[in-house]
């Protein structure tokens, strides 16, 4: 039951049951690392949500809880040298790509040790050391920029792939089509990763896109390879992404991958918001039952890859790492007032 189109997609999660993504065995170490990566992001974001009401993280936060499978599946299929870019809901992408956790939390606390010196906030995560080139909350804004990064790799004949994360809403922007066209025109090594979580803020797909609007067909019409899968099945995400990255590396051009998934919490903020009535409790419950983290853990247990004490041990280790990151952030200084005027121009020019 793999729905093809947005509006026709049933409210509940799609499943990979009919897809042969599981047939070839993935390396056991990799399968466990997918789970670990997702659990780490889940626990980081749960801690952000828990502490957010303290009102010390004074910037908008768009949490990815429920959507970790896409971030981890895609980034695990990339190499360290590969580039990634994201949008407003960027925490999971940043962490999955190897972005520094302490610097991310410090950024949310507005400290000078933040990954953007406190000048960007949660919506502008960047870590050049991890080749996480940036994130922007203007919907669709990072799509052509990522294509440009891939274009630079193409110009320089580098063995480097760029992945850009976008939402279903971004596929409604004109710049999405413009970017697909140019990426296909030059055969650029770029992966367009659409996380279709069914909503743009509170607006469902059905009020935004015509019934039957098939985004993979749009991508194919532009000349891209296009595939879709269950975004809460991290191994399926990994396989498609690996395939697309290999195609890109081989000079076979760009791909569009769409993964269905679901945001558990409110669009922006730490709370559940089903009571607002823009989506049903039943729909939410169906997706929650398909938690990507738990699903992977269950599969690993089924396949005898997890010792009984492993989940608890990992959670303890992650909790310690996260606690340390928050302590680092909260003990870091705010930027000095003079830093308001720095970093405007790369050569230090004034106004």
């Amino acid at each position, binding site marked *: 039951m793999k729905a093809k189109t947005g509006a026709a997609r049933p409210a509940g999660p799609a499943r990979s049951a009919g897809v042969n993504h599981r047939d070839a065995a993935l390396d056991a170490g990799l399968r466990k690392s997918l789970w670990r990566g997702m659990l780490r992001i889940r626990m980081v974001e749960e801690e952000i949500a828990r502490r957010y009401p303290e009102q010390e993280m004074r910037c908008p936060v768009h949490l990815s809880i429920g959507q970790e499978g896409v971030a981890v599946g895609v980034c695990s299929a990339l190499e360290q040298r590969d580039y990634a870019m994201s949008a407003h809901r960027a925490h999971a992408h940043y962490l999955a790509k190897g972005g520094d956790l302490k610097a991310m939390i410090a950024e949310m606390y507005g400290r000078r040790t933040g990954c*953007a010196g406190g000048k960007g906030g949660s919506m502008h995560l960047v870590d050049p050391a991890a080749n996480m080139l940036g994130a*922007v909350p203007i919907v669709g804004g990072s*799509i052509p*920029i990522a294509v440009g990064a891939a274009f*630079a790799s193409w*110009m320089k004949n580098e063995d480097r792939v760029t992945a850009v994360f976008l939402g279903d809403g971004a596929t409604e922007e004109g710049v999405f089509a413009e970017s697909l*066209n140019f990426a296909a025109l030059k055969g650029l090594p770029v992966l367009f990763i659409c996380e279709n979580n069914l909503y743009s803020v509170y607006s469902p797909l059905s009020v935004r896109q015509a019934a039957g609007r098939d985004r993979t067909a749009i991508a194919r019409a532009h000349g891209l390879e296009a595939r879709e899968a269950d975004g809460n099945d991290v191994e399926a995400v990994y396989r498609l992404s690996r395939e697309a990255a290999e195609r890109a590396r081989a000079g076979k051009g760009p791909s569009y991958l769409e993964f269905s998934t679901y945001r558990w919490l409110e669009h922006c903020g730490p709370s559940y918001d089903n009571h607002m009535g823009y989506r049903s409790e039943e729909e939410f419950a169906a997706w929650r039952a398909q938690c990507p983290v738990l699903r992977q853990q269950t599969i690993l247990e089924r396949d005898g890859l997890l010792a009984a004490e492993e989940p608890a041990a990992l959670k303890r280790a992650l909790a310690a790492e996260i606690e340390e990151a928050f302590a680092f952030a909260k003990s870091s200084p705010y930027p000095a007032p003079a830093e308001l005027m720095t970093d405007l121009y*790369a050569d230090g020019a004034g106004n």
Partner: protein
Amino acid sequence: MAREIKFAEAVLEATDQCLAEDPSVYLMGLGVPDPKGVFGTTLGLQEKHGPRRVMDMPTSENAMTGVAVGSAIAGMRPIMVHQRVDFFLLAFDQIINHASKWHYMSAGKTRVPMVVRLIIGRGWGQGPQHSQSLESVFAHFPGLKVLMPATPGDAKGLLVAAVRDDNPVVFLEHRWLHGVFGPVPEEPYAVPIGKARIARPGTDVTLVAAGYMTLESLQAARMLEEDGVSAEVVDLRTLRPLDAGAVLASAEKTGRLVAVDNGWRSFGFGAEIVALAAEKLFGALKAAPARVSPPDVPIPSTWGLSNHYYPTAAHIADAALGMMGKKPRHRAARRADLDKPQDTPNKAFTGPF
């Protein structure tokens, strides 16, 4: 005698030399390799530097500006050109939301060295959407550098400086300047960004302009000479970062200031220059500073109306005379000009363009 070439040839030579000196430089724009070569400013470059580095592009201003931004973040130095500035409004998300802020919002960890060449149209009925002069709009945004050369020598030197600069630079060329000759050294050289130029020294009144209006201001200075008035012309060359020191030094010396704007009167750079003088030189000014600019209306196509839209040297000279307590006379003397087309810079320049 120094070699004299056209402004458009100076742009071409600067681009050619930048492509030659740095393999990370590339050039893109709609029509770049076509037979007209963007008014001659890109002719022959694809043959010389290859189709990867000198390329046409899709009619996708916003995405292609994003491509420039992303490639710059990843180590390239793109030059993008648009045949009219008006089309670049489609790319405001990329140039304003992203390019201008990228360095700041990554606390200096990433940079966006890129140049966008934009051509301001005028005349032959270009009309409301082919002749806007939007320099003040770009100059409003911190993080952009905004250049507006008036001479072939500055066109080359400022373009070289722009390409070597590590920031996003908007480079505005007035279409009527492309055919203007001037001395241009053959070797590559950079004119410093952010430094104004005294285009003509004077003692009685300061005329501040940029780009094409520098030429009108110089013409006004020649007219004022007949009136016994010595005008100093400050050619800003760069709108942002603004060389406030040069403007203030000149206006303090002469005690009078006329800001000559090619764009709309309200909220424009003319207003900025006048505000600067009012704030810093209030006591030193002998007369209230003035703006000369087009009126706040879209630019009509017919010469019957556009003749009355653009300010000319006569407007500038009369503004200065009024400030000197003398009777303005130049506009009245040229009233008959308005009965025939004033929509080309010279006879050699015929439409369509």
